[in-house]
Structure formats: structure tokens, C-alpha cells
């Protein structure tokens, strides 16, 4: 039987390298994907997710098991992403704002091509606008939306990751989705 994440984390606190390797292999894809969704840059996402694993190694002893391991780890990761965004905000003013990955991904990843060229164009434009609107959301709103739609997390868990109340998460989600809804309605 596979050991639980929480048990592995306890072993990491005792500097068990095998347990650390196992946790990394379980979470590396999810951590990288979530970091990329927030940061929208592959290199930054790789660096920040790796830093999250290093922090995990360093502070595994402080995991008390009061929440699920995944919630605790996502909190480390999301905090690092939000810090990264804050620190690099000024820099973005001086370099081009559209990141290397974003422009090509929004359209390229869309499923279900439509036959009518006018409909197709309209749909693509809407999706493109929605993609830009997601990127423009406030960092915590975006994190809340991503944790919901990508990680399928419950409001309670999102609140623990973002270290805020459930009511605040509901407000974040409502405002984020209201912004996106407006984008759709304008089209």
C-alpha cells in the first residue's frame, strides 16, 4: 500500500531522501502547472515550484497534520507565486507584458473547432478575451479561481491555502467570475 502524503512528510522531517523523492514525483506536475497558471511563464513556474519543494524539505518538521498535506504544500507554493508576482511587478513595467507562453497558448489549446467561420472567429475572439481577462485578475482572485477550476479544491481548502476566511474566498471567486462574465457578455 502506498504511504500517505502526511506520513511521507513526517519522514522528510527526519531527512528521509526517499520520502522526499516520492513526494516530489507525486506533486511535481501539479505544482508546476499551478505555478504556471498563476505566473504564466514556464521558467518562473519551474523555479518557483522547485523552490516550493526546497521549502518543503526545510520546513517539513513544522507540518502538524492539522490540514491535508496538499493544502499545506499548496499554501507554500501559492505564497511563493504571489511573492514572485509582487517582486517582479515593477520589472514587468519595463519589459513587454505578454509572456512567452501566453500568446500562443490561449488559442492553440482550445478544443472543438466550429464549422462556421464567423462563429469560429467570434468564439476564438471571446476565448482570447477571456484568457486576457483571466491574466488581468488580481493575483489572489486568480489564485482562488485556479485552485477551484484546476485543482478542484473546496472553498474551505482554498481559504486555508490563501490564509483567509471562507467568506473572503467566496468574494474573491464571485468578483473574479463577475469580471470574466462581463468579458463574455461584451462579446
Amino acid at each position: 500500500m502506498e504511504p500517505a502524503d502526511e506520513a511521507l512528510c513526517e519522514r522528510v522531517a527526519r531527512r528521509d531522501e526517499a520520502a522526499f523523492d516520492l513526494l516530489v514525483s507525486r506533486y511535481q506536475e501539479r505544482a508546476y502547472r499551478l505555478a504556471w497558471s498563476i505566473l504564466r511563464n514556464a521558467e518562473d513556474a519551474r523555479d518557483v515550484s522547485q523552490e516550493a519543494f526546497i521549502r518543503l524539505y526545510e520546513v517539513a518538521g513544522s507540518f502538524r497534520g492539522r490540514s491535508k498535506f496538499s493544502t499545506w504544500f499548496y499554501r507554500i507554493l501559492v505564497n511563493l507565486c504571489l511573492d514572485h508576482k509582487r517582486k517582479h511587478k515593477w520589472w514587468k513595467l519595463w519589459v513587454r507584458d505578454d509572456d512567452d507562453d501566453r500568446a500562443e497558448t490561449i488559442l492553440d489549446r482550445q478544443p472543438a473547432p466550429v464549422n462556421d467561420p464567423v462563429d469560429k472567429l467570434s468564439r476564438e475572439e471571446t476565448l482570447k478575451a477571456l484568457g486576457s481577462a483571466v491574466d488581468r485578475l488580481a493575483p489572489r482572485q486568480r489564485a482562488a479561481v485556479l485552485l477551484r477550476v484546476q485543482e478542484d479544491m473546496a472553498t474551505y481548502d482554498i481559504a486555508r491555502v490563501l490564509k483567509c476566511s471562507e467568506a473572503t474566498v467566496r468574494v474573491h471567486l464571485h468578483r473574479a467570475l463577475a469580471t470574466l462574465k462581463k468579458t463574455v457578455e461584451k462579446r
Partner: protein
Amino acid sequence: MTRHPDNDLVPYLRGELPPAERERVARHLEECPDCKQDTELLRDLLGNLAHLIGQPPVVNWARYRAELSEKLEARRRQIVWWRRPMPLALSASLAGVLLFVAVWGGREMSKSGDPLGPDEVVMGQELGLLQDFRTVERLDLLEDLEVIRNLDGLASEHQG
């Protein structure tokens, strides 16, 4: 009609609300066409967002793990450096010097500092006596000496 349950719509769609709240939102949606329409739009939006956000560029996981190992090793070396005897001894010495300066400096300051209490300073400032406080203090002492000198006379007067 109750207030619009804007913030509750997402938890409602995910089935997270406790039964009473769920019932309240469901009742509201039956009565409020705007909220009902919003809910449908939100449902579509949440469903499409996962596709819209999409997948990040492909990563070479072997390289990712190798980089992670290198970074972790570098961090360990950094920590170990701090634990070596030489930096530790230097840090301890520096801390000792700082402590000595803080304690000794503080004592020197208290010796040379003004012995007046805050109340006396305020009172002195109000009375304009602070500049001549030493003189006033000595006058007080002279007055005390005068009283002591006349104690015998006072005693005999009292007996008489």
C-alpha cells in the same frame, strides 16, 4: 425577495453549502430570473475555464529533478557553511562585543546622565528653575543645616 446570493453561487454550484443555505439559494433562484441566468453562465464559465487556462509547456522532468537536486544541495551547503566553527565563533564574538558595548555603554550613560526624574524635569521647566537647579538644591541643604543648628534652641523653647 431575499438579497441576491452573489457570493454563494459558486459554492452552491459545487454543492458545498449546508442544507439550510442551499435551500435558501435554491428558493431565491426560483424567484429571481437574473440570478438563475447568472448561475447558468457561471456554470458554463467554470466548466470552460479549465480548458481555457490550459496546460503549461512540456517539461523535461528528469532535468527538472536534476535542477532541484542541485538547488537543494546548494542550499544545504549554504546552511552547513553557517554551522562551521569559524563563522560560528566569529558570530559569537561579534554578538559578545555588541552585548558588552550595549551593557557598558548603558551604564556609562546612566552615570553621566541627568539624575532628575521626569516629574522634576517637567516641574523645573514650568518654574524656570532647571538652569539653577544645583543652586536651589544647595539652598535646600543650607536650610536643612539651619534647622539642625537651631534644634537645641527649639527644644529648650518647647520645655520652657
